[in-house]
Structures are given as C-alpha cells and as structure tokens.
C-alpha cells in the first residue's frame, strides 16, 4: 500500500535513528534487492523497447492507435487524479476533524480497494451501471450520458482503485498538524474556510500532491478493471495497458515494449517529482 507507506515514511525520515551496527552487509542486501526486483525488470523493458532502434521505437509509439491509447490513459488518469485529490482531502479532513457514528467503520472501508482484485472492481461497476440498471437508464435518459463502455466508466474504475491514496497520504499529516495554529486563527476571527485555506491547506498540500501522483502512477498501469468497463474500442476507449496486451497477444513485443516505455517514463517522472517535492518540503 504505497499511500500508507508514504505516510509512514515521512514520519520515519524525520526521526531516523543512525544505526551503524549493520554496516555494508545490510545496505548491500537492500540495494541488491532493489536492483533485482525493480531495476532489472524495468531495464529489460526499456532495452526491449529500444532494441530495434530509435526510429522504430518512434514509429511504434507514433502509431495512431498507440497515440490514442496513451491519450485515453493520460486523460482519464488526470481527471481521476483531480477528483481524487479534492474528494480524498475532503474525506481525510472530515475523518480527522469530525466525530460521527460509523467513523471507525468508514476508516477501515477506505483501504478495501487495495484488497479487491481489480477485475472484480470492473464487474461491480458493470453490475451497477450496466444498461439494464435503473441508474444507467436514468443517466442515459436525463443526461444522455453513457457511463459504461465510455470514458466515464474508466474514470469511475480508476477512482475506485485509487480511492485510498490521497486519503492515506493526507490523513497522518492532518493528525500531526499542530491544532493550536488553526485554533489561534479561529480565535483571531478568521472564518473556517479562511483558516483552512491559509493554515491547514499549506500544511497538507505536499501530502495531497504526493497522494494524487501516486494514485496517478497507479492508474497508468491499470488493466483488470478497465478491460471490463471500457469497451476497448481502438481510438475511442482503448487504454494503453489494453493496447499493450493486444500487442503482446499478437506477438509484437517491440510495440508492446515501446508503449510500456512511455508509461514507465511518465511514472518515473511522477515518482521523481513526488520525491523532489518531499525533499523540498523537508528542507523548506
């Protein structure tokens, strides 16, 4: 659970004990583990994507279907992230600030999406928004909006899957927030909204971004739920992971790797910027 891990990491970093008893052995093991488990597979994808040369790599990612698939993935992931950051922050704020019955249950429910196979997530959405359901009929009739087998369906699936990220990033920061500051602002006559905007928001902004970006990175690679709800029509609702799957099935590994490299690069940039923001936050 990256979201949770992040929240803890920030705390651990702040008071890192300097244990030197382990020396190089422990460090070596950790670095080797990272290399073998993460760096090596990533390297293989990069090298396989670029194997045939840059011009073929470029042709592969410039293929109209590939471009469209990447665009659908990036657009839906971005929309999801915006909603997730706003609603996730709100949820975290409510969870930390207010007391209400069922709060503990809600707090437990938040992590559920991590445990549900995303394929099941897709099926749940089909059951909920499928054409025979009242909800789908209502949306179709009132708003002429089709959820399933269209982009809204993809965004919904991603929102479900990435639901915990922002909440779990923001929540610990809010808990640690020195309550005297907003209280002081409040007693000095600031409105609730003004207090939130000027005191609380600056404190949780890095966590909001971190949670949002981790969710975004997670959304880029989502396959199981999307393949069920998206309809997978090339140039319309086909996402990059589904396109990659098609290329793998067709035995076109060069094209599959090339598009994977693009997704990886985006994820890498996102991860690096999250890291950079965390550092900036610690030093600033």
């Amino acid at each position, binding site marked *: 659970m990256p979201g949770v891990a992040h929240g803890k990491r920030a705390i651990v970093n702040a008071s890192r004990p300097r244990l030197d008893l382990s020396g190089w052995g422990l460090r070596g093991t950790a670095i080797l583990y990272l290399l073998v488990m993460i760096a090596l597979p990533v390297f293989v994808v990069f090298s396989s994507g670029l194997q045939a040369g840059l011009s073929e790599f470029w042709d592969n990612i410039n*293929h*109209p*279907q590939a471009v469209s698939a990447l665009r659908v993935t990036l657009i839906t992931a971005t929309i999801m992230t915006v909603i997730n950051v706003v609603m996730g922050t709100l949820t975290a704020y409510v969870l930390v600030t207010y007391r209400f019955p069922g709060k503990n249950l809600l707090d437990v429910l938040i992590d559920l999406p991590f445990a549900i196979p995303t394929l099941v997530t897709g099926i749940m959405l*089909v059951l909920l928004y*499928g*054409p*025979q359901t009242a909800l789908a009929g209502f949306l179709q009739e009132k708003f002429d909006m089709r959820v*399933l*087998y269209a982009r809204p369906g993809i965004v919904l699936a991603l929102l479900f899957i990435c639901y915990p990220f922002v909440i779990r990033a923001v929540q610990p920061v809010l808990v640690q927030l020195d309550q005297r500051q907003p209280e002081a602002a409040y007693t000095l006559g600031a409105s609730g909204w003004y207090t939130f905007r000027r005191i609380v928001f600056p404190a949780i902004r890095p966590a909001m971004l971190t949670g949002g970006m981790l969710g975004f990175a997670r959304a880029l690679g989502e396959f199981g739920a999307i*393949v069920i709800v998206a*309809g*997978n*029509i*090339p*140039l*319309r609702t*086909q996402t990059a992971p*589904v396109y990659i*799957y*098609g*290329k793998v*099935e*067709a*035995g076109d590994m060069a094209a599959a790797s090339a598009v994977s490299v693009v997704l990886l690069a985006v994820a890498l940039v996102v991860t690096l910027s999250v890291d950079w923001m965390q550092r900036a936050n610690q030093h600033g």
Partner: protein
Amino acid sequence: MKRIFPLIILLVLLTNITGVQAQDKPTITLTLAAYTTPREVYTEVIPLFQAYWLQETGQRVEFQESYLGSGAQSRAVAGGFEADVVALSLERDVTRLVDAGLITHDWRDNAYNGMVSTSLAVLVVRPGNPKEITDWGDLTRGGIEVITPDPATSGGAQWNVLAAYGAVQRGNVDGYSADAEGAYTFLVDWLSNVAVLDPAARDSVITYSRGIGDVLITYENEYFAGIAAGDEYDIVYPSSTILIENPVAVVDTYADDHGVREVAEAFVEFLYTDQAQAVFADKGYRPPVLHADDETATTTESDGGSQWEEGALDPERFPMVDDIFTVAYFGGWDQIGSDFFGDDGIYTHAIAEAQ
C-alpha cells in the same frame, strides 16, 4: 481440515490398492495444453479415454490439464511448457510450434487435416429476435449495437472478421459489391456499430449476457454453451459464413522426452472416435465429418457408431448453411495475418476508419 484428513487417508489407501493392481504397468502422465472453451469437452472425454486405455493396455493414464487462451497457450508451450498434446483454437497457433521445432511430424495427416472439431461463426440475438436480424447485412443498420471480441487480443475473434468479410466478397450480402472494396466498406460500416471489443470470445458472451448490445457475433459452440448455462438467446445462421476449425496435435519433442508418444498419439486418435465426437457434439461442436471435403472421410469406428445416430448428428442441431468457406479462401493464416491484421492490414485500416 478435520474433514479433509479422512479423505486424504482414503485417497492414499486407494492409490495404494490401485498401485498394487497395476504394478506391472506404472501409471503414466499425459500433459494436455488446451484453449479455454473446450474444457467441458475434455473433462468428459478424458475419463472415457482413461477407461479405454486401461482396457486396451492395462495401463493407467493420468492427465495434467492446462486451459489458457489459444495464443497464450501456444506461446507457453513454445516457451517451454512441456505439454505432450496441444488442442488449440486455430491452426496458426500450432504452426508456431512447428516453427519452434517442437512438432516435427505432419500433424495434418489424417482425414480431417488435424482438425478435431469445427464450428461456424454465427449471429446471436435477443429472444424473439426483436431487432429482426437475419443476416450479415443487418449488422450495419443504424442503431444496431454489435458485440464481438477484439481480433488484436483474441486470435479466435479473427474468425468473425473473416466470416463477415468473406460473406460480402462472395456476393452474399445485399447492398455491398461482391469484391474487396464492397467487403471493406461493409467492414467499416459494421465496425462503427461495435459497442464493446472484449479481449476474448467468452468475455464477449458474458458482456452480451449482461444485456449489452443487440447482436453478438460468436461461434455456434459458444451459443450452445450459453444455452446450457441457462442464458436465453436465439441463434441466427447467416446465409454465408466461415467454417471454424480447431486443431489438435502431439508435440513430438516433449512427448518423446517424457516417453509417452504412444499414449499421446492414441489420445489424439481417440478424439476422432464416435465416442469422443459425441461429447464434442453434445457441447455444441460440429464433428469435423460434417464438413470434411474428403468424400471418403468417415468417423473411425470404435463402438459401432450407435451414439452417433442418436441425436449427436441431428441435422436440426447443426443445420447446414448455404455457403460455407474456410481460411483457405483467404490463402491460409499466414496470408491472413499480413493481409488483414498486420500494420497495413484490411482490418487495421477498417477499425481506424470506423471511429
């Protein structure tokens, strides 16, 4: 756990007893790598073969069965999954194993060209056929939603594209000229009515059974599987369609490595017997004898063919279609791969133009 223990003990005892009985001939293991849809067939055929083989030779055969999408299964075997027998959905997936040097014999050398089951690409509609779908031509009407699997992810889905394309090119669809141009135009019109492209044929059936779409293009055997599962649809046989042929073959390299060539070959042969074909037919697969172009082809005799007469080959269950063509009409799978589904292929252009 408490309940399982007596079972385990019972199993151990049973294996001991049987082990004593067949002491002179040790149990051998055969690994079958198949595509997903005929799973129901093999779960019934395998016990029949085990009984047959025990009776013939006094030897027990155990089966390890693996079911995976045809393309994925073929790649797994090519990549080192040591299956003795493969049952795949289309010839190209067997050709991959020939190219990999794993199948060295002429696997097409029997009366049915190595094809153990056949089916037709058909149209499935809602009960009572409310949208009055009668043939391929209706798929391009405005407001008709079509469900078909994605040819990019499902090799089997390519049958559907070829069926429709061939039907037009052969002059069997009104409103489109009987040539490549007419067939291409039809393809574009049809694909723009496609609502969902599921990754595999079975997924399409599931999508359709959830109430999505007006017409599902699928195989006749999938229609029968859906009916057997309790779904309600009607089937529409187009006037012209493609004959789907599913190959089966012994994988020479692995069968020899495991020393099971004899039983592997016997199993493949057994699949063509009336006894096994009756199971195929029961599950909705057309026995290859129905469409064998070789006049002399008959089913091999094993039990007098009595099961055959009783319904399995009922002409009402497997009605004939006016015009049936095979992949040979398109020049075989190699040609189809580049002509239709390659980067510059007919389908690739049509799906892009349809958006």
